[in-house]
């Protein structure tokens, strides 16, 4: 009779090396046992992403860092914070000096239950804890820089706790050198009436692979705005989610993707309306050029008791080359009846009438196409915080279009 016990595969050398690297880590904020368990999960869980096929080249099940490339230093992170009233520190310090507030956020969003969230947890070493106390308005954005050196693998973990009535804007900048591997996580937990704007801008170098998982749990009547621009790297894959567990939440998700060359972007957004009388608005703009590929799955889930929910999802894709490919899959799962839910998706090339209109005003065809393509992103760009960041995103998009 065959055994029903779970089969534990024998560790090959490469896998064993990963466990060996875990053993070298500091036992904070996670113990070595917790890290080992996370690595077990990473190796056993499936990604839930598309398998390689006619269009998709990336096999997410086989992605793993090279043990020798893993950078276990707590470096690779730099924070700009000009507000002394906001507490910012690394994760080990947070676990030691502020264990109670840290524990209210760290590991509470379910990220570590996913395949790549588990990988990030296994090696979480360079990270940042941001704690904004009740009713404090932080008017200058906090900027977190994560930088993966060429050829190295890093695992940044950001934890944000914003107490009731507080307000903060955080900009996460992700850079990676050629061939870098970055697998990160961001958890944002807020209390009632908090207002958080969290933007991530990734413009990594050629050959970099960037995998991220960002999850938020806003409190009652809180506002949570995610904005993510994934422009660099060979592979950018991520999960962006908001779990609405209290009424009155306003959640905004914005994402910009622009794969070019052989870049591949694969993003899943999820807004989980578990409490009623909350609104969510997801806006995704994807352009693809040359052999660039993007896949976007937008989930909206409204639980049976989440009456009064108002969820909108808009996803537009612009194909700038015949060889580019974008898959856009909005998925609405609505369990309540007194709700508003809307989704719209468009995929297409630039309208010939738009080009002619611009040409008739003296703009060369290429300039017209660039202007139209940049304009295509603009409604999403405007949802990013700070004029400087918006201008940087515009410049990065323009550079990709040139």
């Amino acid at each position: 009779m065959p055994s029903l016990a779970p089969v534990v595969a024998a560790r090959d050398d490469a896998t064993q090396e990963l466990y060996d690297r875990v053993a070298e880590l500091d036992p904070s904020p996670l113990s070595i046992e917790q890290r080992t368990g996370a690595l077990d999960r990473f190796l056993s869980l499936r990604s839930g992403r598309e398998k390689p096929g006619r269009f998709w080249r990336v096999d997410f099940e086989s992605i793993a860092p090279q043990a020798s490339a893993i950078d276990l230093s707590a470096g690779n992170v730099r924070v700009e914070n000009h507000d002394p009233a906001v507490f910012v520190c690394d994760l080990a310090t947070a676990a030691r000096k502020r264990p109670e507030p840290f524990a209210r956020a760290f590991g509470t969003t379910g990220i570590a239950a996913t395949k790549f969230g588990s990988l990030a947890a296994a090696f979480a070493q360079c990270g940042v804890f941001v704690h904004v106390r009740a009713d404090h308005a932080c008017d200058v954005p906090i900027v977190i820089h994560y930088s993966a050196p060429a050829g190295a693998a890093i695992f940044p973990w950001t934890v944000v706790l914003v107490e009731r009535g507080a307000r903060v804007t955080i900009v996460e900048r992700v850079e990676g050198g050629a061939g870098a591997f970055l697998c990160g996580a961001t958890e944002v937990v807020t209390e009632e009436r908090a207002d958080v704007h969290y933007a991530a801008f990734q413009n990594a170098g050629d050959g970099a692979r960037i995998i991220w998982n960002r999850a938020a749990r806003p409190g009652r009547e809180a506002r949570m705005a995610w904005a993510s621009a994934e422009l660099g790297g060979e592979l950018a894959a991520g999960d962006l989610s908001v779990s609405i567990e209290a009424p009155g939440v306003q959640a905004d998700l914005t994402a910009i993707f622009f794969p070019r060359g052989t870049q591949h972007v694969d993003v899943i957004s999820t807004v989980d309306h578990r409490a009623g009388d909350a609104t969510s608005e997801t806006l995704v703009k994807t352009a693809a050029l040359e052999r660039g590929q993007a896949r976007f799955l937008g989930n909206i889930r409204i639980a049976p008791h989440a009456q009064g929910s108002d969820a909108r999802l808009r996803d537009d894709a612009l194909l700038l080359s015949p060889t580019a490919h974008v898959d856009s899959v909005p998925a609405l799962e609505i369990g309540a009846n007194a709700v508003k839910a809307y989704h719209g998706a468009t995929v297409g090339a630039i309208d010939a009438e738009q080009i002619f209109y611009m040409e008739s005003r003296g703009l060369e065809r290429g300039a017209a196409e660039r202007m139209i393509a940049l304009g295509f992103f603009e409604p999403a760009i405007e949802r990013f915080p700070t004029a400087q960041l918006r201008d940087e995103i515009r410049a990065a998009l323009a550079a990709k279009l040139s």
Partner: protein
Amino acid sequence: MPDHGLRITNLRCQVAGKEILKGIDLAVEPGKIHALMGPNGSGKSTLAFSVTGHPQYQVTGGSVELDGEDILVLPPDKRARAGLFLSFQYPAAIPGVKVANFLHAARQAERPGDLPPAKFRALLLEKMEQLGIDPSFMGRYLNDGFSGGEKKRLEMLQLAVLAPKYAILDETDSGLDIDALKDVGTSIAALRASEEGRNTGFLIITHYPRILSYVVPDVVHVMIDGRIVKTGGHDLAHRIEREGYDKLREESAVVA
């Protein structure tokens, strides 16, 4: 200088394999206003698009010269930079492109480096004030969510800012109320009064004579079934107002 003018000679044009223009001869001189009238479907807009280079309009014969230069060999942007302007009947909406940025890009394309950004902005504000356009227009996306009247105002603003050598206004009057019509007249008068636009030649396409009460043409042409069947002075527009196109259609049938 005999070569000056927008000179259309025996122009023939097809759309989707069907001949629409059957040999058009028309010349707009600098500083003159020509009106091109005709019933729906007579080919007026086809003339506008074929002269400005719309890719769906295939010119099968004839020539178009702008101040002596053959423009049919040029792509649409070069025709514009040569000094040709088309005010669209249905301007395309381009979300995400702000009016001010677009106008600056267009002015730069047509007159590179002639105005630094601050001076361009001043020019834009001046023209907007002349046309009674709210400054908030500058920050709006091009024609996106604009009413019909707002779109036409924006076309007139572009005309004013670009001050072309020759402007084709394709049914700019359609869908406009009397006040908006007056504003179109004011726009054209303002351009003609400016240093940049005093020599602009106009081809105003319309099927209603009423706009010609606000913009008095030097020459009126009537197009029916892809041909110019009559050319005359301003009084021709009045005749059309009285009699409609049917009589001219009958006369042209007799001639043909």
